[in-house]
């Protein structure tokens, strides 16, 4: 370890490979089909809920379509924050996986849960500093990616 270029001896490497195969063989795998089905129906249900909010905005609240979309996002974020706060959303996430956190609900949960967790270390060094521990990487790389895509789009507008 302290020699940067040292490689395990072939015998040792063989031993490590064999062990890794043993662990793979004995470790249960995530049930793929079940995960996909759960993610599909929960994710779909969240999106349907969003669509319902859009329709409410359009037909009852006389919103423009942009305003109705924003309204739907806001409502989903609010509901997720509420469910996170009362300790329900983590169970939904555990059940549905990506189905729960790929929609905007996941982003809300990623903001509210550290806020709750690190509030105890104070408003500045706790909540303030750690609010973006989970969402931070998404924002950094999401924004960076959109800049790159934006440049590409400017160069090749077709």
């Amino acid at each position, binding site marked *: 370890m302290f020699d940067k270029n040292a490689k395990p001896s072939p015998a040792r490497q063989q*031993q*490590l490979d064999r*062990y*890794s195969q*043993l*662990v793979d063989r*004995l*470790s*249960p*795998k*995530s049930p793929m089909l079940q*995960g996909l089905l759960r993610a599909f129906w929960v994710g779909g249900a969240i999106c349907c809920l969003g669509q319902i909010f859009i329709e409410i905005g359009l037909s009852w609240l006389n919103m423009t379509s942009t305003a109705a979309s924003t309204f739907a996002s806001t409502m989903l974020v609010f509901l997720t924050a509420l469910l*996170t*706060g009362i*300790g329900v*959303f*983590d*169970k*939904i*996430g*555990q059940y549905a*996986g990506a189905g*729960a*956190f790929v929609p905007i609900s*996941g982003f809300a*949960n*990623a903001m*509210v*849960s*550290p806020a*709750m*967790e*690190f509030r*105890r270390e104070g408003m500045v060094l706790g909540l303030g500093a750690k609010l973006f*521990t*989970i969402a931070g990487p998404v924002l950094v790389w999401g924004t960076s990616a959109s800049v790159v895509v934006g440049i590409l789009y400017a160069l090749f507008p077709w």
Partner: protein
Amino acid sequence: MMSPNRIGQSTILLPSRPRIAASAAIAGKKEGEGPLSSDFDAIIEDDLFGEETWEKAESRFQFAAADACIRKAGLTGKQVDIALGGDLLNQIMASAMAARELHIPFLGLYGACSTMAESLCIASMLVDGGYARNALCTVSSHYCSAERQYRFPLEYGCQRPPTAQWTVTGAGSALVSSDDTLPTLCRCTHATIGRIVDMAVKDANNMGAAMAPAAADTLARHFADTGRGYADYDLIITGDLGQVGHDVLLTLMQERGLPLDAARYMDCGLAIFDKEQDVHAGGSGCGCSAVVLNGHIMRRFRERTLHRILFMATGALLSPTSSQQGGTIPGIAHAIVLEADA
């Protein structure tokens, strides 16, 4: 010159056979809903234990276990010469805060989930060597404090893979003593100190696989040093290998030509929860082996249904930093032989 109290490469002999005079196990709500609920001294329904933070709550678990253990031995804090404590938190914060209330000379230990065995090994040596008459070993873990330090905020809704384990909320305490006027639950006769074994497992969600080779190594060295075999023990107990580590250990021992009979083998991580409790591969954490040993196993010693066991708590000595830097997980296992008076 060979040290007189050592046998073989790495086993320590404890000629005066220090006794465990009392033990206490304080468990959390989920642990209290498991199969061992009747073995615990107290089940604390409130995760926060009346405190404001998870860390303070864990510390209170540890203090409660230590305090109960001292009282069950019929002693006061002043009669305990040294307290050894450990937990999973950074700077072993829960132990230090509990020791602050105990007012007993304190040695803090970190052996990750192996700390219960590590503390018993050291305490029994201190008592055997005459450096302490009464030595107290207390360790704790807390699901909520471990989760926020090692993984994600509690309310973050992510999925855990089936190999992940559930950190036990609880604390266990044992009093090792040379005082003949105290009761004897069992005696510490040998200790085999573990060495780090790292088989290049990187997955922090599969700690059983990271620790099992260390358990195999310690077990094999213990047998080589002492000339004993499985037949000499009623039970071989591992700390928190969980389902994956349990299965891996059985395979590894088979490969070493020392096939471990599943009927003589118990893993605390598998014993503490029911399959229905949604803990995936089983329990983990310092508190896991601590509450099982000091609750369940000590009850069986008291009822005289166990004669001699090998208690081998396993630890995955990773840190969040080492994981993020792509480091592999160093595993360790310390073993101590506990034997009832004939």
